[in-house]
Structure formats: structure tokens, C-alpha cells
């Protein structure tokens, strides 16, 4: 590393938010950039150091890092970095407000009962650019007080600003909602500070730290006018002219955390390590009113949530080498989430500016408190055979208690066997077989309903009315599951010049009780890597990956009167209303790279290329014999969702003369995609929801950087 300054310029050929999604170079044209690396001269007689670096200065990804200290004694570090994120710039909206918290309709807006009735929509549309940028200041210091004690501190100040889309609705889902995807502001700030003390002895190392993390959102609510206002609505339908809706945005929150970790040698190769972390998360932003109108008639049970979640996590690990061949590892993990937020009855009023329904007990919801308590015990044993062969195996038992969900307790038992082998000095590999069985105590689909509704109302219902969801639904993260996995790897190194690695994995998840929900999913991966180093001056690599993911989701179409088919009892279910959707992802990735060193090291070249083809097939199928009911049970095929990304990256660095280098970077990306969720879907394609009307990205872009690097020490 040397003290250097880089000055350069670049150009992009493409106007595309996707092409520059993480670089910020989203438009055609030129730009300047620079960098620097300043540091003290190497001094073998001193442990002191300092260094300041800057990269991609002039771009939205520009970052600076500075540090100084005395090695072995103390260090101070300060960093600044940024992450831009450009999502799309081909959307449009009739709303004024430019991504602010007040989204208003243009003067002269003519509403309608559906988007087709928006007479001045096309003339009112404005382009929508959706992007955010994170800016992060981090830093910290470490001070070795003496041989045993070390004090450290870290801080982070991070902002995220920009805008995002957000669905803003009137009306009730399950009824006749009307909505608009509007542009909301993003103005977040996160501050985090940690201070810690470490103690090290000849036989142990222990750490105690305190962290605080404060999140604040500049915007607590978004107000939006109702484009569906129209006098054609029947009286009381809920879409009065001039209606203004309000949606809550993310509240501020704060957490405090106290953490202890440590490792103790118990002699020989035996170690005991663990940690204990206590954390409290709080939130008390003022609530919005139930409704923009008639707020006084609908008093809130409290002005803010006074939300509080306490969590406790911990671990205890024991590892030892029982013999020269045998290693034993025992681990215990504990996780507890205790939601101590007060519970109250809240009215579920579907939307602002509507004729408000009376305060009915069936319209009352109770906030659910999701608690979780999890214990995980595991044991692993490794036995080393002759050579580099070894056998290992492990067992794990995880038991989880949850509150207010369908399953109060799940137990998962898993185990694996792994064989590492090395048949020769130039080859090795491994084979691993694992199985996991998760048992749900009792799947009680009435629990979410009972815990989320007013108890007075629940008491009036029959047992077969206590369902939010189909009682045969089995949520895949809670239900019984059998998981089998087989994986293996082979590596060949016939010489120092060539290496070949192969990796394969097949994983199957079976949800035996899921007549509704995910019944089966399967993952498969294959990877092949070839590396070549024919000469010291150049090396090459080639890789191929294939991933597949199959998912089967089952459902049951539940319609109201007159097609009412009861959820329960199961015997009365109409098999014609069963359906199945199979999703298949297939992803091929091919890539390679070459590194050259030419002209006695004066020229360094690096070329990388990659190609990814991702395809998602979706196959719906229904069991209906006498239906279909349009929009409910028809099973017309869906086109594939496809993304093809090809890229070429070339880096070159040429030593012009001592102390001066020419650097060239070239990047090409060809992006082709198709997505039925947005392609051909215009702003007003949906009758009830106003969309941004974006399209899939398709482009070919070139990016070129040229810079001069001056080595100040040899300039």
C-alpha cells in the first residue's frame, strides 16, 4: 500500500434506474471521480500509524475511512459510506405532493367509482422516481488499558432518505376497497452506540457491553385524498367527495441492550463459552385517530401503545477434544421474546372519511402479543480417521413455545451424519445426510381469532365460527414438517495448476398435514468450479451454478352466500373448490474470470464475465368440475417470470512511469426481464387500485472509468 491519489472520469451509455440501482449512475453522460490513500510512512521503529482513504469520491457510493492509533495499544476509526438504491423512474401518479406526507389530487380532478371513470387521469399524470440513499457515519475506538483489560466503543449514525411506494386505501378489504399506490417519503435516522469492556486472563476472555439504538422517523403519517370520490356512489358507500385518508408510518423506537460473553479454558483443549443478552425495545408514538372525521365520537382506549418487548438470549457451549481423534461439542441456546405491551380493545374502522359504523363488538380487535420462548440443545461428535478422513454426526432438539398463534408448542428434532474423505493427496470431499422432524403440539386455528377479538363477542359465537382462516390451513413455519437433506462435495487438485470443485445439495420439506398451505417444497443446488493457474503471471476460473426451487401451495376457495361452502366440518367441503399452485424456480449461473500480469508486471488485467438466467414457472390447477367461477377458481396458465443478466467487467492498470498508473474499468450489462405482475399493467388497469404503471427492465448498458493514479512517494 502506498500514499496515492486517483483522479478520473467516467461515462455511462444508459438511462436506467436498474443499471445504476446501486451505483447511482442512472443516466447517460459523464462524471468525475477520484480517490486517495494517505498514510504514514512505514517506520519499523514505531507502532504508530494513521491512514485516510477515499474511494469513488464524486459518486453516490463515495466513501471515506480514517484511522489512527498505536498498534497493540489503541486505535481510533471513523468511516463514512453510502448506499444508493434506485428502484424505478417509469411510474406515474396523478397525485401532487412530490413524495411528501400530503398527497393531494390535482385541481379539477374528476373522481369515479372505478379508475375507468377518472376523466382527467391521463392529463394529470406525473412521472414518479423511486429511490433512496443511506448515508452512514460509523466509528469507534479500542484502548488496551493493560495486558488484561480493553475498553471499546462504537457508534453509528445512519440516515435513509428518499421515497417509496405505498398502497393507500379507502374501504374495507373483504368488501369493496379502493386504493392508490402513492409515493411516500422515507426519512429515517438510526443512531447506535456501544461501549464495552473486555478482560483477558491466561485462561479466559470475558466481555461486557451496553448498547443503545434509537430509530426515528421524521414522518408519522401520510395523508392522501381519495380519487374515487364521486356522487354516483350510493349514500353511505363510503367514498364521499373530498375524503382524505390517513395511513400510519413506522413509529420511532428505541432499544437498550446489555450483553455478556466469555470463553473459559478448562484445561487442555476444553473450552466453555457462552453469552447472555438482555434487551428492551420500546415504542410510544402517539396514535392517529380511528378516523379523520368524527374522531370525538370514537375515543381511543389510549393515546399511544406504550409498547415494550423484552428479550433474553443466551448460549452455553462446551467443546473438548476427548482424544486425539475425537472432538465433542455441546451447545445450548435460549431465546425469549416477551411482549409486555398493554392489550386493549380497538375499533376496526375500515377507512377515513367514510360513514363510520357503530361501535360493534364484532368490529373490535384486540392487539395480539406474540411471545416466544425457545430452547435448543445440540451435540456434535467428530471422529478423525486415518489421513484426512473423518466422520461426524450431531443431534439437535429445539422446543419453541408461542402465544396467540395456531400452535402453542413445536418440537423439532434433527440429526446429521457427515463423512469427510480424502482418497488421495490431490482429492478430497464430503457427504452429508440430515433429517429434521418438527412436531406441532396441536394445531388450533381458533387461537388467532380468539386472541384477536373482543372476548364479549367471542363468547357469543359457536365453535365452528371461531376461524379467521380455513381450519385445515397449516402455516409452514408452525406446522409439522419433515425435512431431508443430502449434500456432498468433491474437490480435485491434480496439480498446483488446476483445481476442480463440485458441490451438490438436495433438500426436501414435507408438510404432511397441510391440506391448505404449503404441502411440499424442494431445493436443489449444483455448483462446479474450475480454477487454472498455468503460470505465475496469469490465472483463470470458471464456474457454473444451477439452483432449483419447487413449491406446492394448496388452497380451498371459500365464497360467501350463495356459494357458501362451510369451512367446517371438513366432511361438507366441496372438493371442486380445492386448488393447487406449483411454483418452480430454475436459475442457471455461468461465469468466469482471467487475471493477467503482463510486461514484467507493468500491466495488470482482470476480466470477469457472468450470465444468470432465472425463470419462475407458476402452474395453477383447480379441482373444480362444474365451476369455474371467474376470478375465484379458474386455473388458466400463467406466463413465466424471467430475468436474464449478462455482464462483462474489465479492469486494467498500467504503470506509465514510476509513480504514475493508468487505470481503466469497463462494465457491460445486458438485462432482460419479463414479469406478468407489471408488464402491460397500466396506471388504470385495475378497476379499484391506481397503480404506478411501471414495466420490467430491459436494457444494455456500458460504463467506462478512466483514471490516473499518482503514487506520491515515487512521483
Amino acid at each position, binding site marked *: 500500500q502506498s500514499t496515492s491519489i486517483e483522479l478520473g472520469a467516467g461515462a455511462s451509455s444508459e438511462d436506467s434506474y436498474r443499471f445504476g440501482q446501486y451505483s447511482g449512475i442512472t443516466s447517460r453522460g459523464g462524471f468525475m471521480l477520484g480517490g486517495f490513500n494517505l498514510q504514514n510512512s512505514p517506520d519499523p521503529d514505531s507502532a504508530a500509524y494513521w491512514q485516510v482513504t477515499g474511494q469513488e469520491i464524486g459518486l453516490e457510493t463515495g466513501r471515506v475511512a480514517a484511522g489512527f492509533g498505536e498498534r497493540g495499544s489503541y486505535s481510533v476509526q471513523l468511516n463514512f459510506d453510502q448506499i444508493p438504491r434506485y428502484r424505478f423512474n417509469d411510474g406515474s401518479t396523478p397525485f401532487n405532493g412530490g413524495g411528501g406526507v400530503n398527497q393531494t389530487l390535482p385541481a379539477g380532478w374528476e373522481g369515479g367509482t372505478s379508475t375507468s371513470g377518472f376523466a382527467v387521469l391521463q392529463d394529470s399524470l406525473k412521472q414518479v422516481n423511486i429511490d433512496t440513499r443511506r448515508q452512514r457515519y460509523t466509528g469507534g475506538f479500542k484502548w488496551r488499558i493493560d495486558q488484561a483489560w480493553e475498553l471499546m466503543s462504537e457508534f453509528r449514525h445512519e440516515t435513509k432518505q428518499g421515497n417509496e411506494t405505498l398502497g393507500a386505501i379507502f374501504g374495507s378489504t373483504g368488501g369493496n376497497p379502493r386504493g392508490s399506490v402513492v409515493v411516500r417519503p422515507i426519512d429515517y435516522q438510526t443512531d447506535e452506540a456501544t461501549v464495552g469492556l473486555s478482560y483477558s*486472563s*491466561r485462561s479466559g476472555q470475558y466481555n461486557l457491553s451496553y448498547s443503545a439504538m434509537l430509530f426515528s422517523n421524521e414522518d408519522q403519517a401520510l395523508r392522501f385524498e381519495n380519487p374515487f370520490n364521486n356522487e354516483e356512489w350510493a349514500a353511505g358507500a363510503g367514498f364521499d367527495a373530498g375524503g382524505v385518508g390517513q395511513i400510519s408510518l413506522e413509529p420511532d423506537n428505541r432499544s437498550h441492550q446489555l450483553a455478556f460473553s466469555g470463553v473459559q479454558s478448562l484445561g487442555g483443549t476444553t473450552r466453555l463459552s457462552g453469552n447472555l443478552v438482555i434487551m428492551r425495545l420500546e415504542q410510544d408514538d402517539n396514535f392517529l385517530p380511528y378516523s379523520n372525521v368524527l374522531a370525538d365520537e370514537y375515543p381511543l382506549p389510549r393515546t399511544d*401503545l406504550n409498547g415494550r418487548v423484552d428479550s433474553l*438470549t443466551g*448460549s452455553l457451549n462446551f467443546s473438548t477434544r476427548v482424544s486425539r481423534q475425537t472432538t465433542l461439542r455441546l451447545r445450548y441456546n435460549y431465546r425469549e421474546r416477551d411482549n409486555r405491551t398493554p392489550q386493549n380493545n380497538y375499533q376496526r374502522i375500515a377507512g377515513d372519511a367514510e360513514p363510520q359504523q357503530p361501535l360493534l363488538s364484532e368490529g373490535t380487535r384486540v392487539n395480539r402479543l406474540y411471545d416466544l420462548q425457545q430452547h435448543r440443545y445440540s451435540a456434535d461428535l467428530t471422529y478423525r480417521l486415518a489421513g484426512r478422513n473423518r466422520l461426524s454426526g450431531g443431534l439437535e432438539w429445539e422446543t419453541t413455545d408461542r402465544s396467540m398463534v395456531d400452535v402453542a408448542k413445536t418440537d423439532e428434532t434433527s440429526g446429521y451424519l457427515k463423512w469427510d474423505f480424502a482418497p488421495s493427496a490431490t482429492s478430497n470431499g464430503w457427504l452429508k445426510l440430515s433429517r429434521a422432524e418438527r412436531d406441532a403440539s396441536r394445531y388450533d386455528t381458533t387461537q388467532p381469532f380468539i386472541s384477536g377479538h373482543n372476548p364479549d363477542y367471542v363468547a357469543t359465537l359457536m365453535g365452528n365460527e371461531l376461524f379467521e382462516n380455513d381450519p385445515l390451513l397449516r402455516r409452514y413455519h408452525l406446522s409439522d414438517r419433515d425435512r431431508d437433506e443430502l449434500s456432498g462435495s468433491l474437490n480435485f487438485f491434480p496439480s498446483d495448476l488446476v483445481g476442480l470443485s463440485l458441490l451438490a445439495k438436495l433438500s426436501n420439506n414435507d408438510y404432511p398435514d397441510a391440506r391448505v398451505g404449503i404441502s411440499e417444497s424442494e431445493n436443489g443446488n449444483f455448483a462446479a468450479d474450475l480454477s487454472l493457474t498455468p503460470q505465475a503471471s496469469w490465472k483463470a476460473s470458471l464456474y457454473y451454478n444451477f439452483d432449483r426451487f419447487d413449491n406446492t401451495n394448496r388452497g380451498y376457495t371459500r365464497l360467501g352466500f350463495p356459494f357458501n361452502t362451510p369451512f367446517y366440518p371438513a366432511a361438507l367441503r366441496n372438493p371442486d373448490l380445492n386448488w393447487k399452485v406449483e411454483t418452480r424456480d430454475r436459475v442457471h449461473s455461468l461465469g468466469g474470470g482471467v487475471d493477467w500480469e503482463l510486461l514484467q508486471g507493468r500491466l495488470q488485467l482482470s476480466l470477469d464475465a457472468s450470465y444468470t438466467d432465472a425463470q419462475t414457472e407458476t402452474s395453477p390447477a383447480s379441482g373444480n368440475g362444474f365451476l369455474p367461477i371467474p376470478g375465484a377458481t379458474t386455473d388458466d396458465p400463467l406466463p413465466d417470470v424471467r*430475468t436474464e443478466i449478462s455482464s462483462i467487467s474489465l479492469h486494467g492498470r498500467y504503470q506509465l512511469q514510476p509513480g504514475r498508473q493508468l487505470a481503466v474499468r469497463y462494465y457491460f450489462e445486458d438485462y432482460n426481464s419479463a414479469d406478468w405482475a407489471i408488464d402491460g399493467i397500466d396506471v388504470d388497469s385495475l378497476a379499484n387500485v391506481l397503480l*404506478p404503471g411501471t414495466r420490467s427492465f430491459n436494457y444494455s448498458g456500458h460504463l467506462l472509468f478512466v483514471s490516473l493514479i499518482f503514487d506520491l512517494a515515487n512521483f
Partner: protein
Amino acid sequence: DSQPLLPGSVYAQSASSAPQQDSDYAPQGAQTCLTCHNNPVVTSILQTGHGNSNISGSPFANRACESCHGASPDHVSALQEPAVVFVGSGRFPASDVQVQNQMCLNCHQSRETVHWSASEHQAADLACVSCHTIHASQSSVTNELRDQNLCLTCHLEQRSQLNRRSHHPVNEGLMSCNDCHNPHGSPAVGMLSRNTVNETCTSCHAEKRGPFLWEHQPVSEDCTVCHNPHGSTQDRMLAVRQPFLCQSCHSETFHPSFLYSGDDIAAGNPGQSMVGSSCTNCHSLIHGSNHPSGARLTR
């Protein structure tokens, strides 16, 4: 006595079977070694903190080369195998991984490595030098992590996922694997740098941690119930496309229970639960709502 974790003359005891005396060490220190090992690959260590004798606790402030390689009198006198070999060759195979790693941990036992002994990498017999190049004038890991080649050399499945259209900006060099993972070990699954999946995710996405009045249960339990953080073929790094992802857990009367198919994207009749942002066209506060009437995550 307990096995020491800190530097001192005990280095060699941890590495070789026989205790070593002061007289076992080369009398001329590094000069003895450099007599033969005088090539740039080796001597580049002199440009690093390890090779700086002015740094308290550094190997060269102690027994120089033998601080890490152990006292090796037979190697000096008769070219026998050194006490500790980190990168093996045809002549001298690498020492037992645990012996190698203990040499590093003698000095580098810290807050970041406290869980190493119980880590997946340790269980896989990964040597410190599998990732760290000690005889290098630059911090190899720091540099290599930026372009991810290091981790993805072994984690090929994640390499493929990072190439998918929806991913964290790791390939772009704006994030690194150790923004989320601690390769030196962690009590959390996947060697995450924070205590749980959610604590890791919400360290950057703090707006999603609530606590909200109306929580979405999987959000409060584990972000990976719905998201694949290494990359996905679906938008927002979702594991499965909407509405089918949502229908995995929601089958209420009417629209959550319907079968969505090609009929719902047909021109003139697209379904509002299917196109655009699908379910989140309306249930837009999917990570939780703090509106008193936001039970359905629409307000």
C-alpha cells in the same frame, strides 16, 4: 494449569507435545530463519504489524518467527519439520488445524472470536490461514471481503443467490458478508453477527422492528420466514412470489382463498390481488401497523 489463551513463552507448548525451553529457540531469532527463508513471500511479514517488534505483544516483539511457528531446533539444525506448519507443502504437511489455530488464538482471543471454539467454522476444521494470509503486506481479509471472493469460494450456493435479480448489494461492493455474519463464530444461527435473525436484519431496517400495535406474527419471529436475504428471483427478496407466499398462511373467506391464475392477469380483467404489488397493494403495512384501526395492516 489451564490452557493459556494469551501470548507468552507458552506458544510452543500449545503446539508441540514436548514443553520447550529458552534454549530451544534460535539464538539469533528471525535472522536465523531469514538466512534461508529470504524471499518476498516470507519477508513481506516485516511490513505488517506481526513483523513490527515495537508493537507490544506482536510476534516479533517476542520470539519472532518462532512465536507462531514454535521453537524448532531440529528444523534449524537438520531441516526437520518445524513445530507448527501453517501452509503445508509436499515436504512438510500442515500441522493439525487445532494446533495452528491455537497459535493465532493465543493472541487473538477477543470479543469477535469469543465463540470460535463452538463455531461451525471451527467444527469444519477451518484454519485461520484458510482465510487470512499472514505473510502479506496488506490486510488480505479486509481487502478480499470487499469483493467477496473469500467467503464465496466455499459458499457456492450463496454466490449463486447473490447473482439473482433481487439481492443485497454485496456483489456491488457496498455490503460485505460480515455485515451480517461473524465468520469467527456466534451463538446465533448462521453465525450471524447479532443475537438473532431479526436483530441482525433490524440493525439496518430498524423501522420494521416496532413494536407495532398490530404485529405480523412471522415478522416478529423470523424475517426469513418470508425473505431470502442472500437473493431471490422474486422482488423484495421474497422466497415465493405474492400472492402465493401470502396464501401459504392466509386462507380467509373470499379473496385470500381464491385461486389466482392467468385469468387474473388477462387484459381488461386483471386482479388487484395479483398484479402491481399484489396483496401489498392494499395490505401495504405488511411489517406491522401502528394505526388503531390497522389490524389488517392496511392503515
